[in-house]
């Protein structure tokens, strides 16, 4: 069964104004998005920012230096910030970017602090 929800720290990603080009770890690509990092065939996603009333984004997964990248419109600075994504259908996801001092940010931070899969890389994440 594919995981339905992802909660993940947003880091500075590629930096230098490219913070919205998010590079989740390979485990997240495989367990949540269902994409193998080594595959030549890459999907295009329908992303919908649910924090604001906005039109769906069409974002293709691209490879940057042996890592896969997805552009997420609202993942720009500042940090800290936490990304929450929910699968809504085939290659379709709703997303929220939470920042302090919101209650949602505090709730997701608690989940990452207590249940996150991987803190070694500096980016905490969990798929549910």
């Amino acid at each position, binding site marked *: 069964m594919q995981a339905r929800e992802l909660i993940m720290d947003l880091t500075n990603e590629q930096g230098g104004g490219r913070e919205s080009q998010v590079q989740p770890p390979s485990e997240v690509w495989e367990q949540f998005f269902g994409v193998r990092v080594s595959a030549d*065939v890459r*999907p*295009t*996603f*329908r992303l919908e920012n649910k924090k604001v009333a906005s*039109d*769906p984004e*069409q974002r*293709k997964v691209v490879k940057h230096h042996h890592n896969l990248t997805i552009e997420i419109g609202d993942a720009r600075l500042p940090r800290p910030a936490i990304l929450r994504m929910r699968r809504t259908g*085939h290659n379709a996801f709703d997303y929220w970017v939470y920042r302090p001092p919101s209650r949602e940010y505090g709730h997701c931070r608690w989940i990452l602090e207590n249940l996150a899969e991987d803190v070694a890389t500096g980016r905490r994440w969990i798929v549910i």
Partner: protein
Amino acid sequence: MPHSPLTPTEYYEILRSNLAPMFAGADLETSSIPCEPTARMVTEEGTGVVLIRPDKEWRGCFRIKRKTPFEPVDIEIINQFVRALGQKLVAVGEPFFDYLVEMCPQDVVAWSAQHRSMDDALLPGIIAFMQKWASQTYEGARISVSIGIDPSPVASHISSTHLSELIQHDYAKVLSNGIDTLLVLSPSGHVVEHLSLTRRIGGRVRNMDSYSPNRYRPLAEWATRSRVALVLNRHGEILLFKREQLQFAFRRGKWCHFPHDAVIDRMGGSKNEKKVMRAVYASCLDISFARTGGCIAVANGNRAANVSAYVGGDDLLSESRTEKSLLLRHLLGKSFQDIPRPIREEIGALDGAVVLDNLGVIIAAGAIVTVSGGSDGGGRRAAAKALSRLGLAIKVSADGAITAFSDRGTKDNPEIAFELCV
């Protein structure tokens, strides 16, 4: 990943069965040629001659030749085929290897049409389900659908329903008609809109002799810029349109490519005569996809005076000796290129040949051609070969294959100017 190379015979069979059919009239030499390990995968050796190295792990290549030159777009297709094959070679020795190799032409078609924003699996997925639906029916009727992909759809119109979810339902088989309605998808494959293209076409100035079968023009004209339209028709054929032209068609189990400009170039004629050639070519596409069969000849310059050597006087419109020729003369009072395409298609479907002069004046229609005995093909082929002595003669068979004979070569073995979907 390195793999053990195949035998030269196996490479030959892969190219012969899967690549050569994309280039009508091409001949793959049976013997391989040794090459350096650093040799390029695809090399143009000369006009109409290309060396293909099917595997970078193998120090050999094959020569593919045809009488007409390979255009840059042809070379690109060969390169894509070699790339597609390279991906499959890691499975050499596996029982499913042959099946993977058969997918190479389909990969080439998908890569040629795909915009960078599109999901890599979208076009191959559409082609795969169309091939599956080609053998199915809906309420007793064969399925005909049309799907468009718009790289820049209106964002607010993108639904949350993905094509892969939609096609699980039987009703998806009637959500477009394969002619003038279209189900439009976003680059991710989500449904955007269900379009009727009839009003749009009425409001535009149409290029009458566009490079698309006339019945699919609404779909072709939607496929502007990077848009792609795919059609499954009731014959089980899949047509792919891009840049307002028919680019590829899957017919009789094979993918064929339509290099329109190169074909027009090979039809010859002066700058002024090109308008006639374009009209003739467009009508050949119409006849080919209407599956009626036909034969159209264009007489060069003063050879129009020799038409009576091939066609009986009863069929000459200028003489109007019979009721048929009298009526056709009355109905076809214009040059061929000025007659609407549906009318030209119907005239082309008459039993017999249509013969024009180089300005497009119709000399004969539905004309029975005098042919010599001992022909190597059917009556239409024999008629086209005979009429080729006038300049150019094109035979369109009832199963859609198009073969054009030029006035070069001998009477019994005229040179082929071009072939499509053979």
